[in-house]
């Protein structure tokens, strides 16, 4: 039972943040919900290993985004996604930075993941690289390039 209790505690501590990060990455709140559930189930399957990780929340985030990306490739033609604008504007009473989410969607998935882990989760370059299984140099260049692109696009949008 100790494992179950530890897993539930981990879930309660990290679920909200992982869900927010995956939603921002995918731009689809409903798909994010399914992806995060799936990722937590996979974490339960490998709980002994996941529990021992330095950043288990980052691992769940990565699995959720990968699952959703794969799911989209398979099912894009069959199920319309629910854009976050529709979901969030109608259902929640909280200001959501939809412009930013929209701009994030213009980036390659890898760049989105780097930005979210670096700034959403506050991971260092090294931790981000380890979580995503890529080189530190790749993290630095991806983060720099992605930030510049978004900044330029947001400024252009604001200037209109």
């Amino acid at each position, binding site marked *: 039972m100790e494992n*179950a209790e530890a*897993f*539930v*505690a*981990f*879930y*309660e501590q990290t*679920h*909200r*943040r992982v*869900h*927010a*990060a995956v*939603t*921002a990455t995918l731009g689809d*709140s409903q798909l*994010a*919900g399914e992806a*995060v*559930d*799936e990722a*937590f*189930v*996979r*974490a*339960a*399957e490998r*709980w002994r290993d996941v529990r021992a990780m330095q950043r288990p929340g980052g691992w769940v985030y990565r699995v959720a985004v990968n699952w959703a990306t794969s799911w989209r490739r*398979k099912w894009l033609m069959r199920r319309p996604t629910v854009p976050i604008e529709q979901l*969030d504007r109608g259902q*929640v009473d*909280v200001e*959501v*930075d939809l412009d*930013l*989410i929209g701009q994030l969607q213009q980036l390659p998935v890898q760049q989105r993941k780097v*930005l*979210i882990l*670096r*700034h*959403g*989760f*506050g991971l260092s370059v090294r931790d981000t690289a380890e979580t995503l299984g890529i080189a530190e140099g790749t993290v630095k260049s991806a983060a720099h390039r992605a*930030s510049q692109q*978004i*900044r330029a696009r*947001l400024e252009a949008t604001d200037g209109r």
Partner: protein
Amino acid sequence: MDVDERIRELVEHHPAPPAGDGRVLYERGRRRLRTRRLAAAGVSVVVVAVVATAGLQLLPTDEVPTPVIAGLPELDQQPARSAACAQLAADTAEVVVEVAEHAVARAGGIPGDVFAVEHDDVWELAAQLADGDPQLQTAVGDIADDQQQQACEPGFAYPEVSQHARDEVERHRAAIADDPDMQTYATANVLVVLAGEFAPPTVRQPVPEGIPVTFPVHPDAQLVSHAEHEGQATATWQLAGADIEEIANLYHEWLNEPLAGGWNVVASDGMTTHDPDGTTTGRARLEISGYGTTGQLNIDTMEPPDIIEITIQLTAQ
């Protein structure tokens, strides 16, 4: 505010998602793990995904391997659909598991071989059973997905469909009652994935009389003798061109099921000798129990030593 700061704010202050249940997800993960181990051990698996919007299908009992995994419709988390789907599941789950247990018992297994898993897990199981064949996996998943969509579409006319489902369930119960020998087994509009078609090539062969159908027989082994008398059964197979240690390891893996009442290796010993010419000779012995039996499995090298003899002696408990 800079981009970096806006991303931090976005994650920190995003609206809270619907409250989930970590324990439910944990249990689902553990069930998947158990199923994966079963499949890895070469256990025949039937995946049954239930949707109650259409009629019954009848399958001959002899097509039913064990264990049966009954997939119940997922309790859809979307509020608009949840009541209908939850009720649908409740209406059909009981009878499907009941039927599956009959089928398992008839096939020589024990009722505990029947598990209920969530509909979503059908995808996961399909992936395992398809053994890396993406076309097959997609075909299986498509059927599962279509069935779920059919049952849980928005606007799903629950009262009418529910009544139909209830009628089918009642008809099904009557079929069982009228057919005590269970010549057929019925499921409430199921998707059935027969392990014989989809499982990896290590799936067992049929077993002789008196041996539980779940006993694994190497696909290349030839039955050379068999006897059954008063609750005791013996069978011997020979296998050419094999290595005794490899075969012993396979059986050790196959007979370690993470299943209550399933195969279990109680003790093992053996002695093998590696000859300079590269051949291995010797014997391995496994004390085993499972499926209401106890016994001993002996694996011996013959002459020439690449012929392996596998003998099982089982006594009903």
